C-alpha cells in the first residue's frame, strides 16, 4: 500500500493515557489523591481529544480520516496504520468518555493500591482505543490481546470474592477465541503474499484478496468465534456474568461499555467486509444465535438475585440485538447496530455505575437486600429510573432508536428473526422493572436502607454526562446517525460488490410520494 502519513493525531489520542501512566509511575503510591487527580486529568485530556476528533470529523466521505500509516515491521509488511471512520468514531468517543467516568467513579470505591489501579485503567484505555482505530490486522491483534491484561488485573486485583476465577476465565475464554483468529490472520497474510507477492497485514490490502469459498468459510469461522466470544453471543457468554459480577465498578462499566463492543465492532470491521460471502452464508446461524441471545439473556436475567449479574445477562440480550442488526446487512440494521452499541455502552455503563453506588453504600448487590430506596434517595431514583428506561428501550431515550432501527433492518432482511427479537423487548421490561421495583420501591424495611445518602456531587458528575447523552440520542439521533451514514453505505456497497450479488437494495422500499390530488 502507499503509505500516507496524514498526521499523528490518532497516535496522540491513543497513547495519551500513557503520559499519565508515566507520571503516575513516579508518584509515591501513598499520595493517592494526587494519583487520582493525575489519572482523571489524563482521561479528561483524552476525552478532549476525542471531542476534537468529533468536531473535525468530516461527514461527507466514507473514507478513513485522521489516517496515519507508517511502515513498522517491514519484513512482514506490518505498518502502523490507524484511522477513524463512521464505524469507529463514536466508539472511540465512548471509550474516552467511559474511561473518564470510570476513573471518576473509582474515586472512593478504590482505596487499595490506587496507583496500580489507575495505571491499569489508563493502560486499558490505550488498548481499547487502539483496537478501534487499528487498520492493520497485526496492530489490531496486538491491541486486542494486550488490552486483556489490564482488564485481567482490574478484575483480579480489585474484584469481589471470586475475582481470580472470573479474571482467569475471562482471560482464557477470550484468548481461546482470539488465537484462532490469529491463525486466520496468518492464513490471510499468506494468501495475500501469494496473490500479490508482497507481505502485508493491512486491512486495505486484505480487502482486495480473492479467497476461495471453503477457505473463506473457515476464515470467517475463525474470526467469528473470536468476536462472538467477545460479544458475547449465546452460547459463548458464560464468562460475562462472572467477569461482570466480580469486576470493580469501573471495570464492569468498561467491560460492558467498551469491551463487548469490540466483538461487534470486529464483526463489522473485519469479519463481514473481509468475508462477505461467508458472512451471508453464516447469517442464518448468527441471527439465530442473536435471537436466542436476546430471549435467553432476558429470561435468565429475569431471575438473577444479584443486580450485577442481572445487568450482565441483560447485556447478552442487548448485544444480541446488535448482532441481529449487523447481520441484516442493510443500512438500518447496521446503523441501528452501531447506535445500539453506543446505547448499550451508555445505559449499561450507567447501570453498573448505579450498582456500584449501591454497593459502595451497602456492600451488597443482592436485590433482596434492598428495597424502598426511592424514599431516602430521590435523585438517585430519578437517575436510576432514566437509565433503566433507557435500557428497556423506551422511546424518547437512546435505547429505542437503536432497537427500532435494528428491528427495521432485520425485518427487511428476514422477518422470522424480527418477531422473536421484538418479543425480547417485552422481556426487557419485565426483568428491568422487576429489579427496579424490588430495589427502589416498597418500604425500606432495613434501617440501613433508610439511612442511605443521596447522590454526592461526584456521583452527579459521573451520571449526568451519560444521562444527557441518553436523552440526546433518544430525542435527536440524527447527528449521531449522520456520522456513520457514508461509511455504512460504502460498506454495504462493498460487501455486495464483493459477493457479486445484485446491486445493494439500499433504496428499497421507495418512500411513497404523496399523490398530488390527495388528502388535503
Amino acid at each position, binding site marked *: 500500500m502507499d503509505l500516507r502519513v496524514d498526521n499523528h493525531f490518532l497516535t496522540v489520542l491513543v497513547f495519551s493515557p500513557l503520559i499519565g501512566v508515566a507520571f503516575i509511575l513516579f508518584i509515591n503510591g501513598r499520595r493517592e489523591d494526587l494519583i487520582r487527580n493525575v489519572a482523571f486529568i489524563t482521561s479528561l485530556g483524552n476525552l478532549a481529544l476525542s471531542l476534537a476528533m468529533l468536531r473535525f470529523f468530516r461527514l461527507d466521505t466514507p473514507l478513513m480520516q485522521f489516517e496515519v500509516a507508517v511502515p513498522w515491521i517491514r519484513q512482514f509488511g506490518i505498518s502502523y496504520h490507524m484511522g477513524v471512520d463512521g464505524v469507529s468514531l463514536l466508539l472511540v468517543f465512548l471509550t474516552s468518555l467511559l474511561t473518564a467516568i470510570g476513573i471518576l467513579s473509582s474515586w472512593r470505591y478504590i482505596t487499595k493500591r490506587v496507583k496500580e489501579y489507575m495505571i491499569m485503567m489508563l493502560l486499558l484505555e490505550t488498548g481499547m482505543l487502539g483496537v478501534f482505530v487499528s487498520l492493520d490486522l497485526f496492530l489490531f491483534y496486538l491491541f486486542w490481546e494486550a488490552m486483556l491484561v489490564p482488564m485481567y488485573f482490574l478484575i483480579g486485583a480489585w474484584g469481589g470474592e471470586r475475582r481470580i476465577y472470573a479474571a482467569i476465565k475471562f482471560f482464557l475464554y477470550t484468548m481461546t477465541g482470539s488465537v484462532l483468529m490469529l491463525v486466520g490472520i496468518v492464513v490471510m497474510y499468506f494468501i495475500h503474499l501469494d496473490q500479490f507477492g508482497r507481505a502485508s497485514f493491512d486491512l486495505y490490502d486484505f480487502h482486495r484478496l480473492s479467497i476461495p469459498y471453503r477457505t473463506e468459510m473457515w476464515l470467517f469461522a475463525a474470526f467469528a468465534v473470536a468476536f462472538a466470544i467477545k460479544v458475547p453471543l449465546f452460547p459463548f457468554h458464560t464468562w460475562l456474568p462472572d467477569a461482570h459480577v466480580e469486576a470493580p465498578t469501573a471495570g464492569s462499566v468498561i467491560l460492558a461499555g467498551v469491551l463487548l463492543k469490540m466483538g461487534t465492532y470486529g464483526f463489522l470491521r473485519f469479519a463481514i467486509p473481509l468475508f462477505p460471502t461467508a458472512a451471508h452464508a453464516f447469517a442464518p446461524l448468527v441471527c439465530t444465535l442473536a435471537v436466542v441471545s436476546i430471549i435467553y439473556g432476558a429470561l435468565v436475567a429475569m431471575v438473577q438475585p444479584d443486580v450485577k449479574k442481572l445487568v450482565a445477562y441483560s447485556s447478552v440480550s442487548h448485544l444480541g440485538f446488535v448482532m441481529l442488526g449487523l447481520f441484516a446487512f442493510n443500512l438500518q440494521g447496521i446503523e441501528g447496530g452501531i447506535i445500539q452499541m453506543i446505547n448499550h455502552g451508555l445505559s449499561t455503563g450507567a447501570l453498573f455505575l448505579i450498582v456500584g453506588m449501591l454497593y459502595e453504600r451497602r456492600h451488597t448487590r443482592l436485590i433482596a437486600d434492598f428495597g424502598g430506596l426511592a424514599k431516602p434517595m430521590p435523585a438517585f431514583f430519578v437517575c436510576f429510573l432514566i437509565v433503566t428506561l433507557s435500557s428497556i428501550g423506551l422511546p424518547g431515550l437512546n435505547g429505542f432508536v437503536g432497537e427500532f432501527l435494528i428491528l427495521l433492518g432485520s*425485518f427487511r432482511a428476514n422477518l422470522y428473526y424480527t418477531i422473536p427479537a421484538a418479543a425480547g423487548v417485552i422481556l426487557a421490561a419485565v426483568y428491568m422493572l422487576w429489579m427496579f421495583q424490588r430495589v427502589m420501591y416498597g418500604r425500606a424495611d432495613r434501617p440501613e436502607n433508610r439511612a442511605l445518602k443521596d447522590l454526592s456531587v461526584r456521583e452527579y458528575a459521573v451520571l449526568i454526562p451519560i444521562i444527557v447523552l441518553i436523552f440526546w440520542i433518544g430525542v435527536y439521533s440524527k447527528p449521531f446517525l449522520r456520522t456513520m451514514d457514508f461509511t455504512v453505505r460504502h460498506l454495504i456497497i462493498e460487501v455486495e460488490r464483493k459477493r457479486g450479488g445484485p446491486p445493494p437494495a439500499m433504496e428499497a422500499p421507495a418512500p411513497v410520494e404523496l399523490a398530488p390530488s390527495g388528502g388535503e
Partner: protein
Amino acid sequence: MIDYAWLTPLIPLAGTVINGIFGRRLPKFVAGPLACLTVLCSFALSLMVFLELNAMDEGRRLAVRSVFTWIESGTIKVDFAVLIDPLSAVMLLIVTGVGFLIHVYSLGYMGHDEGYTRYFSYLNLFMFSMLLLVSAGSFLLMFVGWELVGLCSYLLIGFWYEKKSAADAGKKAFVVNRVGDFGFLLGMLALFGVFGTLDFEKVFAAVRHDSLVSPWFADHAVPVHEALAVATPLLGLPLITVICLSLFLGATGKSAQIPLYVWLPDAMEGPTPVSALIHAATMVTAGVYMVARCGALFTASPDAMLVVAYVGALTAIFAASIGLAQNDIKRVLAYSTVSQLGYMFLACGVGAFAAGIFHLATHAFFKALLFMCAGSVMHAMSGELDMKKMGALAKTMKITAVTMWVGALTIAGIPPLSGFFSKDEILWSAYSAHLNGSETGKILYALGAAAAVMTAFYMFRLIFLTFHGKSRAAPGVHPHESPPSMTVPLVVLAALSVVAGCVGVPELLGRFPLSRWFFDFLAPVTGGGHGSAPAAHAGSGAEGAVMLVSVCAAAAGILAAYWVYNARPALHDRIRERLGPVHRLVFNKYYVDEIYTFLIVEPGKWLSSRLLWRVFDAGVIDGVVNGAGYLAQGAGAVLRRFQTGVVLNYALFFVLGIIVMLYLIL
C-alpha cells in the same frame, strides 16, 4: 396557531422539567399551580388550534408541521412532526380539557401528600406524552407517546411505591402494555416494509389512492391493494389483516381489552385523579384513537374489523359482568371503563369510527367525573374503598352525591344525557352494520345491549351502596365534603356530561344547529360520517326501536339495583347464596389473573430460574466451559503422575517413546 400546535405537548413537558429538577426546592403553592398552568396553556392553545381548524374549508382541514428530524437512516426518516386534523384537534381538546380539570382537582386531592411535586411532574409528563400521542404525525412518533403514556401510567400507578401492591400493579401495567406494544411495533415494521414511510398522511394517502409501492417482499412496484393482499407465510392471512391485527394487539394492551385488560383493575392502586385522567378519560382511549386514526387501514380488512368488533363487544359484556360483583368502588369503575372501552371498539369494528370517538369524548367526561366523585368519597372516608363500609354519604356530601348521580345516569344511558346519545349511536351502528352478513351486527348489538343493562345495574348498585341506605362506616371515620378545588371540577364535568350529547344527536330526534356536528367534523378523517349513514337504509323504525330498548335496558338496570340494594337490602345476600359458584366466579374476576399466573408467569419463572439459569446456563453451557478447564486439569493430574521422580521410570518412557516412534516410521 396551527404552526405552533407542536407546542401543545411541550408546554407540560416544561412543567415536568421544572418540577422534576427543582421540585424539592419549590414551595407547594408554586409547584401545583404551575403544573395546572402549563396544562391550561396547552388547553388554550388546543382551543385556538381547534377554532382555526374549524374555520378552514372542510376539505382542507389537515396540517402537518415538522419541527426537526429525529431519526434518519437511509430511507427511514422520521420527523418530530405534528399532524393537526379534526380527529387530533378533538382529542387535543378532550385531553387538555379533562386534563386541566383533573390537575385542578389534584391540587386538593394530593394537597397533603409528601410526593406532591413528584406527582405533578409525573402528571405533566403524562400530559406531554398523551398530547404527543394524539398529535403525532407518524406512527413512530405516536409510538413514542404511546410508550411514554405507558411509562407515566407505570410511574403514577406505583406512585405510592411503598405499597407493594401499588408497585406490582405499576409493573404489571407496563409489562402488559409492552405485550401490546410488541404488536404495535410489528405492525409498524410491516407498514414500513410496505410503504417505506411511517408518516400518517403518506401511508393513508397511498391506501386511499392505491399508489404504487415497493414492499420488501416484491422486487418491483405494485399497487397498494395488491401488496396488502399478499398472503403472509405461516398464517395465510392477507398482509393487511396481519398488520391491522398487530396494531390492534397494541390497542388491546393500551385500552385494556380482552385479553390484555388485566392490568387496568390493578391500576386503581394509583391516586384517584390518576385513575380518572389516565385510566378512564385519556390514556386508555389511546387504542381507540389509534384504531380510528388507522381507519383507512382497518376498513381495508373486513376480517380485522370483525375481530375488533367482537373483541369490543365481548369485552364490554365480560367486564360489565365482573363489575356486578365487585365491592371496591374504584374497581367497579375500572371494570366499567373496560366495558365502555369495549363499546368504543365495537363502534370502530363496525366502521363507526366517529361514533367510537364520540363515545370516547362523552366517556372522558362522565367517567372522569365518576372517578373524581369516587375520589371525593375516598377523601371523605379516609381512603376507604370498600363499598360495604360506606352508605348514606349523600347526607354529608351533597355535591359529590349529586354529581355522581349525574355521572351514573349518564353512563347508564338515560336521555338526554350525553351517554345516551353516544351509546345509542354505537348500538345503532352495530345493529345496522353489514358485516359478514347482517346477523353478525345483530349479535354484536345484543351483546352491547346486555352490557348496557349490566352497566346500569352495577352503577346504581354503587350509588345505592355508597350514598344511600344506612351508614356502615367504620367507627372514627367522619365523612365530610371535599374542598372547592375538588368539587368545582366535579360540577364542570357534570355539566359537560349533561350537555355534550347535543353535538351528536341522531337525526331521528330532530335536526338543529350542531346536532350532527361531531360526525360531520370528523368525517374527513373517519371516512364519510358512518354514524349517520345507516339511518338511510335501515329505516327509522328500527332506529327508534333500538333507542327504546336502550332506554328500557338502562331503566331496568337501575330499578333492579334499587330493588336489590336499597329497597330490600337483605335480598342480595340471598341472591349471592343462590348463585353460589357463579357469584364466586364473577367475584373472582373469572380467575383470569390466576390463569395468567398459572399459565405464563409461573412457568416463565420456573423455566428461567430452574431450567435456563441453574440447569442450562450454569450446568450445561458453563459446565462445558469449566468442564474444558477441569478436563485439562484432570489430564494434567494424570500426566504428572508419570513424572514419578524415579529416573528408571523415565528411561522406561524413553524406550517406550522410541518403540512408538519406530512403529510410526517403519
